[in-house]
């Protein structure tokens, strides 16, 4: 409910605009312009995942488990190549960190209330991201599945 400065707006644009090269430059924003979020939270979201999630080479087993979860709990609203109810997720791992994605899955309500990127996405899509009750491990598996989708 607090206002955000120009840097935050820029950041949202950058965050959503499909910077395909690297994880976001979110941490560049200063505390005053991020609604009191820490640089860690700006980059990795707010929620139960409080440390950077390090991902190694693609783990196909995990991705397979993630696909099953995604089909049951996420696919009604998210497609890979098109905006549907929520944003297209085919390239999401190039825009956001694994921890950010996991916190968005695990703690969507607080994310859309407090995180500038998530707030902007809510304004764009006009539908609350559903909390589908995944465990932290399941959210991690979904991240692996999403990594597999990057083209």
């Amino acid at each position, binding site marked *: 409910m607090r206002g955000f400065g120009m840097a935050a707006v820029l950041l949202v644009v950058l965050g959503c605009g499909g910077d395909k090269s690297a994880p976001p430059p979110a941490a560049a924003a200063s505390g005053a312009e991020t609604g009191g979020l820490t640089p860690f939270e700006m980059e990795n979201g707010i929620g139960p995942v409080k440390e950077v999630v390090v991902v190694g080479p693609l783990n196909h087993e995990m991705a397979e488990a993630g696909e099953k979860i995604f*089909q*049951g*709990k996420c*696919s*009604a*609203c998210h*497609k890979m190549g*098109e905006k549907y*109810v929520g944003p297209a997720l085919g390239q999401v791992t190039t825009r956001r960190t694994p921890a950010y994605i996991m916190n968005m899955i695990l703690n969507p309500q607080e994310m859309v209330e407090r995180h500038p990127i998530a707030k902007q996405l809510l304004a764009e899509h*006009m*539908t*609350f991201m*559903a*909390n*589908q*009750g995944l465990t932290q491990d399941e959210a991690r598996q979904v991240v692996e599945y999403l990594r597999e989708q990057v083209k």
Partner: protein
Amino acid sequence: MHTANLRLLALLLALPAAGCSGGVGAPAGSAAADAAAKVYIAPGQKDEFYAFMSGGFSGNVTVYGLPSGRLLAQIPVFSQYPEKGYGYTDQTRALLQTSYGMVPWDDTHHPELSMTDGVPDGRWLFINGNNTPRIARLDLRSFETAEILEIPNSAGNHASPFITQNSEYIVGATRFSVPTPQADVSIGTYKANFTGLLSFVKLDSLGHMSLAFQIRVPGYNYDLAHAGKGPSHGWMFFTSYNSEQASTLLEKNASQNDKDFIAAVNWKRAEECVAQGKAKAEPARYAHNWVDHESLVAKSEMLSGSTVLRPDACEGLIYYLPTPKSPHGADVDPTGEYIVGGGKLATVIPVHSFTKMQKAIADKAFDGEVDGIPILKYDAVMAGEVQNPGLGPLHTEFDGKGFAYTSVFLSSEIVKWSLQNFTVVDRIPTYYSIGHLMIPGGDSRKPWGKYVVALNKITKDRYLPTGPELTQSAQLYSIDGDKMQLLLDFPTTGEPHYAQAIPASLILDRQIRTVNLAENKDPYVTRSEKDVKAAREGRVVHVWMTAIRSHFMPDNIEGIQLGDTVQFHVTNLEQDWDVPHGFAMLGARTSELLIMPGMTRTLTWVPERVGVHPFYCTDFCSALHQEMQGYIRVSVPGSTVALTWNKPS
């Protein structure tokens, strides 16, 4: 708005409180402010107690917060409830089965919380169906009806469902004695052919109910009951009236005798006699309905036969305590020593002593017998009589601090009296004609003696009028101090009979928030949008549909023909708390569906017109809720339009 309402309420409360408390010179403003402060729950704050009230002839249970008196929920039990699809959907219809077929209504009177060691434990709530004798069990994790058991050969299941100290049994008793088993006899042969039945329903560790045994008793009207506790654990006390055995104009003909009886039933002795083969199997036919734990689909089975005990075949089973006059309530104090009779027509409140009762039994201090039931001498069992209790004492609850509170109907008051010397210490008016009263845990071993709630029969001039029928009401009184204090009036739904209340902390952390989709075992579940489909089986078309913010899948269906029956099996894919979706079909002559997260519910629709018919979500779910809709096309019989439906891209 909320705050304004409460302020208005406080203001309204202030006027009658000041006007009616008899001008004792107390400054009205400060008394009202004090009362208002005691019931004021600030916006966003929660109440201290859950109160479960009978919905009376609505057939429901209503849930209120105390002390605010705010209505939190209506739980459908014996009545169809289209708002939730209850009693209409394939998953719930079986709950309303009886030996008479489906009975979509009843009259609920007495909620009863499950107990552990004589204290309400917050697991289940039981309630009686008075008209077509039934007992329901509600699961307090979901606030839903989980099971309903019909009581065979009974009529008017009023003295029900009172529970024993460790939830071993709940009981039911015939208010109306009838020929049992039923027979085509003259009503004039009442004394020869009519009997009563006291039914004992066994509970297992999961709360499941089964009819254990029934006791055939003389043909009186059995009214209310309460279990013994502590030293009197193992006994159940039932009031009876109409010991005159009248079958007509009971208001006069059943009011002749100075004393009727409280039946003291030794149910542990009953268990022994049944084990020794002293009971007989008698014909009976009754329905048992329950929600299957796995599929969450209600099932029904028809059972037969009942184990019936006669007092003359089981010595020591029942003793009659003479009790003046046409007693209503039978209430046992927290220590288990005193059994208080509410004599509707009595001029005193009789208090029996369990210790004296045991001695009288040992001494055989009998005053005759009825059908093998010894009548104990009144003086040998009486602990005391409360004098000047008012006109028409009905029910008594306890505060756990040595005091009893009796509702008095004709003189519209609550009378507080001491369990030490049986004298009245305080009295306060109710508005008007109080029936039951309730203290949280007030019938248990450890009452939370902070409030008493009056459950009134008449409101007369207390509320804005609403046509020929005025609202029903409850009133909340503080019993913290020496003097009772009226705090709040609040309307109730249906006639409030009995109620029970329990600290919210014993319930709120155990709530079921969602059904895990992966564990949904409904036979027609759809766990993912990619699995949606429609299929024809003869004249029935099944549609496996999903709902999530904010669309149905499929939402375009063609190929239905007049003469088909369509079954929409809608699974709510949400996995978050309080995100139900509704489903309403134009022209469906049943109800809507209200589908909780992770659950599947089925709407049956028989299309009656050719054309394209919309359906939509009724429960506001998101900013795009108004977009959550679909169409189904209905063609003439024999049409070549193929059955098709859309799928996710």
